């Protein structure tokens, strides 16, 4: 058995497989499907200061080898997450989790990070400055290096937990933004969030999504994600959590060769609820087939 452990900002993970925010809820549904303690860790659904219903439905559309979502950060709000979801989760899940914090202003990010900082079960915080579904025209907060830097600086001041900034791929220069986060003390970078896309129903002559635009994810975006992970991992001196279209153990290896220290699985969970389990169970054999002894030093 090849060694699948990885170190991520001081956290020792049994394996690099981490379900991505928004595709794993708070673990509830998956816990009925398999023992989620096998996961390296997992990132919970993007949480904001206030509860949010999210966008109107339809929120989902199909695309070639992918999907669009315009869920729009539906969540019960940070207080309910801390009071209700995390204690319930702690009864089944015995490892550290990663908190995903979203917001609409620097203050909101700070508010949520300060609160989540107090939760023992949280091993790291992922700050999502890149959700394309919550602003008009799909332009996210995190598309400017200055905004990214401001958020990073502000949240770093209120937490001692490792902070990953989750970046948007809908930008001209991802490296510039990652560097701005690094300069303000980010402990790591997560990427990619979804790409802004759209579908039209030719029968109704209306956009399929009630919100017109949505975020594209799934295998279709894998080559874009891989490129951005490669660029960022070679430009900053921080661990990168790579994601975007990963659906097999081979994809995980490819993503780690691009420079990811851990790998998140998003849309694939929705199509196959057992995908993370299958990847974890198959990882060692795939490593052996490529003569990989350990996952460190895979970066090319």
């Amino acid at each position, binding site marked *: 058995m090849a060694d699948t452990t990885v170190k991520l900002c001081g956290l020792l993970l049994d394996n690099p497989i981490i379900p991505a925010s928004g595709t794993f809820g708070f673990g509830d549904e998956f816990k009925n499907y398999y023992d989620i303690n096998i996961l390296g860790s997992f990132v919970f659904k993007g949480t904001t200061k206030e509860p949010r219903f999210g966008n109107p439905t339809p929120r989902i559309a199909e695309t070639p080898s992918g999907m669009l979502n315009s869920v729009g950060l*539906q969540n019960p709000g940070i207080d309910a997450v801390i009071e209700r979801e995390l204690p319930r989760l702690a009864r089944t899940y015995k490892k550290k989790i990663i908190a995903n914090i979203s917001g609409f202003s620097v203050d909101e990010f700070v508010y949520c990070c300060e609160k989540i900082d107090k939760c023992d079960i949280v091993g790291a915080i992922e700050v999502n400055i890149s959700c394309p579904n919550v602003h008009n025209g799909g332009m996210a907060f995190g598309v400017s290096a200055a905004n990214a830097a401001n958020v990073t600086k502000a949240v770093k001041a209120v937490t001692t937990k490792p902070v990953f900034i989750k970046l948007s791929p809908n930008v001209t220069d991802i490296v510039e933004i990652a560097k701005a986060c690094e300069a303000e003390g980010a402990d790591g970078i997560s990427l990619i969030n979804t790409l802004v896309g759209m579908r039209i129903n030719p029968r109704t002559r209306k956009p399929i999504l009630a919100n017109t635009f949505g975020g594209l994810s799934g295998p279709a975006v894998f080559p874009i994600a891989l490129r951005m992970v490669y660029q960022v991992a070679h430009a900053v001196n921080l661990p990168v959590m790579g994601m975007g279209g990963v659906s097999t153990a081979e994809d995980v290896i490819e993503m780690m060769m691009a420079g990811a220290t851990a790998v998140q699985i998003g849309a694939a969970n929705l199509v196959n609820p057992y995908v993370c389990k299958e990847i974890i169970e198959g990882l060692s054999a795939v490593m052996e087939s490529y003569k990989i002894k350990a996952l460190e030093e895979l970066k090319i």
Partner: protein
Amino acid sequence: MSHNHKEDIYTLTENRLIAKNTYRTVFEGYTGHITKPGQFVNIKVEGQFLRRPISVCDYNENNMVLIYKIIGQGTKAMSEAMPGTRFDILTGLGNGYTIRGNKPLLIGGGVGVPPIYCLAKALASDNIKASVIIGFNSVEEVFYYDEFKALGCNVIVTTADGSMGLKGFVTDAIDRFEYDYFYTCGPEPMLKAVYNKTVTEGQLSFEERMGCGFGACMGCSCETKYGSKRICLVGPVLEKNEVIW
């Protein structure tokens, strides 16, 4: 794959055109996760990224029957599959109908009819003879009239063009029955009309575009009087008294 998994591999054993663009498909495999009428399955179709949700129309220990209409590429591909083809299907999804009342009225429209049949069958095995209204656009689209009859149901067919049964919509037939509870499934405009026309409590089965079908993605959320609910997990059936239009 063990049967602990709601995902399993099923073999298509029958795929038959039973009405205009409408197919009846039988899948062989483990059905132990199906526990209530009104539940659905989610089918992986070659070449499509997302699964396709289809209601369970009928099932026994080793087989389930689905009825679907060709809408786009996914249902087209399903309709072309040959017996023997194997499909990856998640079964036993959703909460389904909860049986209440002694004189139930069942109302199905188009491909909303299959889950209504599943319910009628469950009621029949509890010795409750249901009244049933099934509505279609036209006679070529009608299916399962005889099957409802065979269950002993009191059935009325409505067609929009009058080519079979009562001319009009399902709601035009509601007053012909005495009922103390209703169950319905069909296109949203029909559900709304039924909601407005019925005089009792009841349950409505909704459709929404789904990402996962098992509660993970929040794609199918719906606002109700008691907060937001996921159609795929808590639904597809909602109680009349919680629905907000």
